[in-house]
């Protein structure tokens, strides 16, 4: 199977058409709050978060440290429970990508993908070819038996993406997945991610503290305030044509959002001790 066939196959499965994405919700947050109890204090990590992510939508969450972005993803992934409110995901199965590619170092690249297939219940005879198909999708054909430690950071993150796709998710959660990569690699992975999103019709919630990255990738960007974490801004990215990190239109919107973010950060200045 060559690459184009892989794309076509995925594109047929995809539901990334505009009419549908506006119709049905994939993830719904309803008055979600999350409080962590410390030894003497309790900290409110998320406060009354309410918003909806549509099926097939690519949404980016930006905010400074302590805005609870990662907690929000953990709630969607079911790794944590909200203190109050509800998180529902009518969109279907969820996969999560971490900042660290979090590949299991005792397995090869392909075996990492196969483990996800196996835990999903895919029969042994199909696993190998399925893993190779997914590695081909992220442009890592022929690297099934590569040890993880021989791969570059960008390659590891792509293996992690292939492993996430092996779970056949309908919703992909990404927790600063490119934060540790160099700028050149990150730039390429942005294009890669958009390509895969288009091909698969996945719903993507992408968390980052890099405003430009958010504008470069998302259809929508949500700005979160810190301590307690809450949503304070929502932008629809309406940039036509090719979008790149250097595009003036991307920069323009990024400046607007960054100004808002800085205003929010300044409001915490009095809290410094």
């Amino acid at each position: 199977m060559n690459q184009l066939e892989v794309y076509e196959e995925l594109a047929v499965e995809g539901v990334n058409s505009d009419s549908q994405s506006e119709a049905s919700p994939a993830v719904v947050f309803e008055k979600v709050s999350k409080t962590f109890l410390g030894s003497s204090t309790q900290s409110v990590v998320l406060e009354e978060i309410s918003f909806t992510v549509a099926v097939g939508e690519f949404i980016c969450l930006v905010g400074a440290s302590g805005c609870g972005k990662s907690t929000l993803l953990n709630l969607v992934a079911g790794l944590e429970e909200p203190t109050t409110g509800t998180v529902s995901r009518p969109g279907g199965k969820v996969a999560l990508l971490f900042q660290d590619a979090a590949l299991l170092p005792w397995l090869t690249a392909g075996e990492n993908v196969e483990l996800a297939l196996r835990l999903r219940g895919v029969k042994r005879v199909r696993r190998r070819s399925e893993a190779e198909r997914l590695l081909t999708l992220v442009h890592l054909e022929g690297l099934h038996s590569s040890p993880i430690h021989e791969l570059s950071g960008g390659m590891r993150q792509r293996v992690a993406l292939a492993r996430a796709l092996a779970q056949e998710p309908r919703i992909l959660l990404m927790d600063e997945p490119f934060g540790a990569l160099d700028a050149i690699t990150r730039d390429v992975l942005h294009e890669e991610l958009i390509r895969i999103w288009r091909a698969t019709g996945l719903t993507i919630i992408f968390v980052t503290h890099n405003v430009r990255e958010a504008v470069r990738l998302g259809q929508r960007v949500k700005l979160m305030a810190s301590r307690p974490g809450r949503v304070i801004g929502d932008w629809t990215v309406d940039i036509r044509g090719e979008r790149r990190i250097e595009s003036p239109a991307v920069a323009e919107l990024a400046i607007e959002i960054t100004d808002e973010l800085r205003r929010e950060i300044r409001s915490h200045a009095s809290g410094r001790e």
Partner: protein
Amino acid sequence: MNSPKINPAVGDEVASLEAGLDSLGSTSGRHSAKTTRVHKAITTIVPSFIAIALLLLLWTLLYYSKIKPSYLLPSPIDIWHSLATLLNQGVLWSAVGNSLRRAAIGFLASVTVGTILGFSLVRFRLLRMAIGPLVSGLQSLPSVAWVPAAIIWFGLSDAAIYAVVMLGAIPSIANGLLAGVRHVPPLYLRVGRVLGARGFNTLRFIIFPAALPGYFAGLRQGWAFSWRSLMAAELIAFSPSLGISLGQLLQTGRDLSDMSLVLTAIFLILLVGVGFELIFFTPIERKILRTRGLLADS
């Protein structure tokens, strides 16, 4: 990185860009493995050979300088003769064989019990709190201290020897497993959950492979302790009914004030202990570390 079958589609700039980045960023095929391995073998073996040769030379010089009489300091040649005598009498193989058999049985029994104990400590918090410190403490108790107790319990028998060997090795193995599991990075557990592993699958696909290096370190230490404990037990629990063994060889040498026999026994004990390590543990450990990219030369 370019596989011969699938070329990046014409016009697919991302793919070729990635291929370029990948070949710049990955380390696969950067060195020729074969020459490295031969080179490595030579550089590791040659220095130790030179060291042994120098040691033998120094020893021989001391012998000929007559600082001590030869019944206190025999020459390497005397050791060789004593080894040849043992071989001719048929004592050598039965002594090595008996000790090695006891060590192997004792070690395997320790692995079984130690692994079960380790798993129980991992699994049951209350048990861990109750006897965890005791198990760690026992690790630092020289197992020779158990010899008198074992002899009182079991008499001068194989059972007494096995008891000492096991009491020496089990704490190391149980602790190794416990430490291995404790040091499993929480990130791997989260990955397991996200991938849908629960219960036994988490244990099988995430926790055990992640804990393997720690467990193996425990096994290795357990073997070293088994061997030491065995020698202590054989040396002290000395009885003709127990048959010939390396520890008994030591005791015989002492009784006869035969320094060459004593040194020969020490040499054999060292050889078997180190040999087992090199033949069995070192290759497995290297494999475990290499797959995980934890070996400096990989």
